[in-house]
């Protein structure tokens, strides 16, 4: 039987993985919840966020506040790209069959990944950990890097902020209403078009933010977009597409199942996660906290 500090370390490593996934998958889930568009290009926004953060760090120079400025700048840049995509392209497809929207976002994946290749080439790139968060601390006998602690804290903070905005603010009420019944909301005089753009911008911002924040712990390389989108899909399928807390729960489960699954099935690291997803799909096809599609 493994000792307690190992169990703690393992669950914390699962939690870190979960928070990264939550940051990325929440934008995907938000966009689906309101727009009912499954955005394949969300992983590509994540990749663009990573490249943009790298680019900004190059321009600003390493050290000081440059990493944080780069993260905010990168997420904002991706949000602008997302806004343009929704306003000028995706908007024309709402009346079409869902398949066209899916094909469109898939086309975006291909186009934007080539744009990224033209802009940044194929060489792998890396960003150093920001000053102050390079090292690690010891908690209950487990070594925890500061940056991982920061990501866990940030993930929880963003989850809390989201809950507050969705439940308590006027914009949040509109978003929840749009997710339930967009026609009625429009009939009540709310500008649904602007709301959609806003939600897409916010979702893209989260994707770009996730991409920018992973640069100190992952490699920036072409293909990182398609690697992450599969994991993000698993998370939202388990938790329930479009459900905010479902995404949070899905990410937590994904992280813990991965962390402890490899102890039991070392040869099949993702087996446990996919087995769980299959089980969820059989019992609740709309996910743990999702709602059935009409």
């Amino acid at each position: 039987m493994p000792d307690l500090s190992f169990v703690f370390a393992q669950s914390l490593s699962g939690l870190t993985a979960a928070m990264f996934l939550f940051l990325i998958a929440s934008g995907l889930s938000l966009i689906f919840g309101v727009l009912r568009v499954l955005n394949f290009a969300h992983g590509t926004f994540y990749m663009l966020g990573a490249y943009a953060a790298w680019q900004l760090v190059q321009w600003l120079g390493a050290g000081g506040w440059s990493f944080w400025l780069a993260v905010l700048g990168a997420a904002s840049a991706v949000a602008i790209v997302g806004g343009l995509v929704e306003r000028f392209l995706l908007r024309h497809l709402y009346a079409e069959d869902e398949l066209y929207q899916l094909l469109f976002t898939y086309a975006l994946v291909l186009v934007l990944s080539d744009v990224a290749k033209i802009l940044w080439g194929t060489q792998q790139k890396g960003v150093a950990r920001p000053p102050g968060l390079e090292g690690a601390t010891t908690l209950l006998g487990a070594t925890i890097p500061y940056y991982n602690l920061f990501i866990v804290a940030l993930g929880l903070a963003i989850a809390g902020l989201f809950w507050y905005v969705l439940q308590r603010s006027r914009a949040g009420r509109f978003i929840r209403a749009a997710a339930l019944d967009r026609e009625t909301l429009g009939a009540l005089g709310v500008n649904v078009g602007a709301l959609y753009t806003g939600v897409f911008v916010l979702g893209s911002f989260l994707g770009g933010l996730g991409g920018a924040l992973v640069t100190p712990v992952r490699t920036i390389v072409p293909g990182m977009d398609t690697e992450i989108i599969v994991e993000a899909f698993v998370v939202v399928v388990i938790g329930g597409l479009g459900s905010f807390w479902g995404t949070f729960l899905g990410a937590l489960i994904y992280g813990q199942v991965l962390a402890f699954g490899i102890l039991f099935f070392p040869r099949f690291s993702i087996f446990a996660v996919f087995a769980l997803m299959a089980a969820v799909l059989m019992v609740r096809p709309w996910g743990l906290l999702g709602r059935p599609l009409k």
Partner: protein
Amino acid sequence: MLRVLTLFAVALFALPFNAQAQKPIKVGFPMILSGPGALFGEPALKGAQMYVEEINARGGVLGRKLELLPRDTKGNADEAVRVARELILKENVDFLVGTLTSAEGPAVSVVAKENKVVFIAAIPKTDQLTAPDKLHPYVFRVAATTTTEGRSAAEIVAKWPVTRVATISPDYAYGQDVTKAFVEHLKKLKPSVEIVDQQWPKLGEADYTPFINAQMAKKPEAVFSSLWGGHFVTFAKQAKPLGYFDGVKYNFIGVGEAASPESAKTMGKDYPVGIWGNTYDAFYWDGASAAHKDYTARLVKFLKDEQPSSWPIQGYISMQFLVEAIAKAKSIDADKVSAALRGLTVITPSGPMTIRASDHNATRGQLYGKTVMDPKFPFAILKPAQYVAPDGFMD
């Protein structure tokens, strides 16, 4: 008038004949030129292009120029087969050189066999490519193999004062095969070794932390890894602050080019300096021959990069073998070139290499060594970089 017309007609017939003699030798080059694999595919193509440019400047081979026709395989075996067929049937290429992944190589090998076209695999390492039941007269390889790479690492680890050894490798053909070769050879060299843990993250895993923690809990004294390219960079970035490399006292060996100048550059000061790793080539190689120094100088000019990639050498050596075999065969006939390739020794920038007649594999070794920080560079280098020739343990 009739005489003139006859002459004209004769000239017309003669023309294509003359053109035939000067027509370039066409070499199809299926390679990953988009997506994640382009990181290695593009520089490999550059190496082949540099060689072709140089040989053409010297008049080509058999008095004919070479023409390279690159095609993007998109890292997909089906697409590699499609472009290989297109190159043979539509472009009438005389040879195929290239491919990168261990899925593409064997797939294109089948096309080469069907069409009786000589194919030199530049980068695929899988043993399957030249396994006895898959071997045919037209397939050759100038890359290292999963057997030679795993065994080279075992030769090094066997000399370390450790017995508790762990492995971490991506869970697909390459990772499994190279790890198996490592474990088997290490146990043969040092029977006291115990494999205490094996982690198999999926290829492209984004978060290695759970795997790293699980491995550390087994308290290995040394680790073998075959996480390659960007996967290694991600892994190492996450492992370093967890104290993983300190835990094994830097008795860590990363194959799959974990110590390539590209990966070292990506990580800069974040690199776990002190670990062992390998690479196909290193522009800074201190023990290099004059031929390698000359090659590097030409490559720097060709790529306009003072610190060129380690991948062009694979494209370069592939073309070197092809051209020298054509010269030896005095023909571009596939059977004659195939015969010439078997047993052919070429002085490559990495040293002399022979394509073995028995399994059509070149005796391709790699550079291994311990990584250190050198004040001359802002990233870790192998010092000394030692070329491990696999000749002694290929069978």
